[in-house]
């Protein structure tokens, strides 16, 4: 049962492949996907790209390539630059040049931080009710006194900051 299912999968695949072959008429050549073909890339860590940048040379460029086969000292500076530009897209200096993108990003971040701040202000003003009555100054001072009387956190915490002899906070 399993074997017959495997066979039918294999059989189906061979049929579809052969259909592909017949449709293209290449008789034995499989279509190559784009990502398998050599491609040009400007990268510091891959300094020699797989193909030249300019693939289809104009007549002038082809003449220049013929001249390149002779001695290079016969080439002018402009011709050398033209040959470079045929082979490569950017120079190292152009590749390494920074952009101004950071300004846009920083601006966007600060803008949204500002919007968030405005939302918070709006919330505090229009949405939230009053804080509990235990936040009043009278309550907080009574509460602090009670914490000191109870010796809350006496080792390094609040009670350790209070001078019990002088009845004041330690300096």
């Amino acid at each position, binding site marked *: 049962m399993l074997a017959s299912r495997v066979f039918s999968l294999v059989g189906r695949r061979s049929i579809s492949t052969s259909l592909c072959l017949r449709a293209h008429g290449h008789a034995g050549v499989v279509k190559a996907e784009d990502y398998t073909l050599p491609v040009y890339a400007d990268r510091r860590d891959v*300094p020699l790209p797989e193909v030249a940048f300019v693939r289809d040379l104009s007549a002038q460029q082809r003449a220049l390539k013929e001249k390149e086969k002779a001695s290079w000292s016969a080439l002018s500076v402009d011709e050398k630059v033209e040959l470079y530009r045929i082979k490569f897209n950017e120079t190292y200096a152009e590749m*390494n040049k920074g952009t101004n993108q950071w300004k846009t990003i920083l601006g966007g971040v600060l803008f949204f931080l500002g919007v968030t701040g405005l939302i918070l202000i709006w919330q505090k003003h229009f949405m939230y009710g009053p804080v*509990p009555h235990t936040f009043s100054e009278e309550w907080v001072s*009574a509460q602090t006194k009670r914490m000191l009387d109870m010796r809350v956190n006496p080792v390094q*915490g609040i009670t350790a900051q209070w001078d019990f002899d002088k009845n004041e906070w330690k300096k």
Partner: protein
Amino acid sequence: MANHSQLNFQDASSPIMEELMGFHDHALMVALAICSLVLYILTLMLTEKLSSNTVDAQAIELVWTILPAMVLITLALPSLRILYMMDEINEPDLTLKAIGHQWYWTYEYTDLKNLTFDSYMTPTTDLPLGHFRLLEVDHRVVVPMSSTVRVIVTADDVLHSWAVPTLGVKTDAIPGRLNQTSFLANRPGVYYGQCSEICGANHSFMPIVVEATPLANFESWSSSHPS
């Protein structure tokens, strides 16, 4: 209890919590070392120009496999030490039961007498001046200080958790299950905690208050309560 803007631990009131604070300092130091190393390497990476030299590096791959293993051992050994310390056989002087309900605790002292009471949070409207909002209860858990106390924690309905940070205690209260923990209060004092497992609408409003007193006070308190 904690101050209003406190980020660090409360002072330890039990030996286990002291150990845990020491371990936490150690772990934070390790974390600081790792973070500064990562930050340093990050700045190096971001300022280094890419070249074909930067695409593969076998020696550093070995280093950053071995080094983290050593860091983990540095963290694991003290951690396990404390873990086993918490589970030592310590022959408690007192056993009490903490049973979580929605939304209050019941405490049972049934070692020598039949003492049971509920502990509800004091509503904010009924708080005397200077008392702590959402932390005070009507009946505190009184225990003798400097005595090992065993607490058996369970729940009656849904999950709760009995936690008192300064004593280094947090134990889940699971219906149908008895979980055991123990602590020893070094100092006399009042220690606050809050329910630490979401249990419904009033999960934030069922605090725990442990009052550690000298043995004589504890005995007079327990005998004054009707059994």
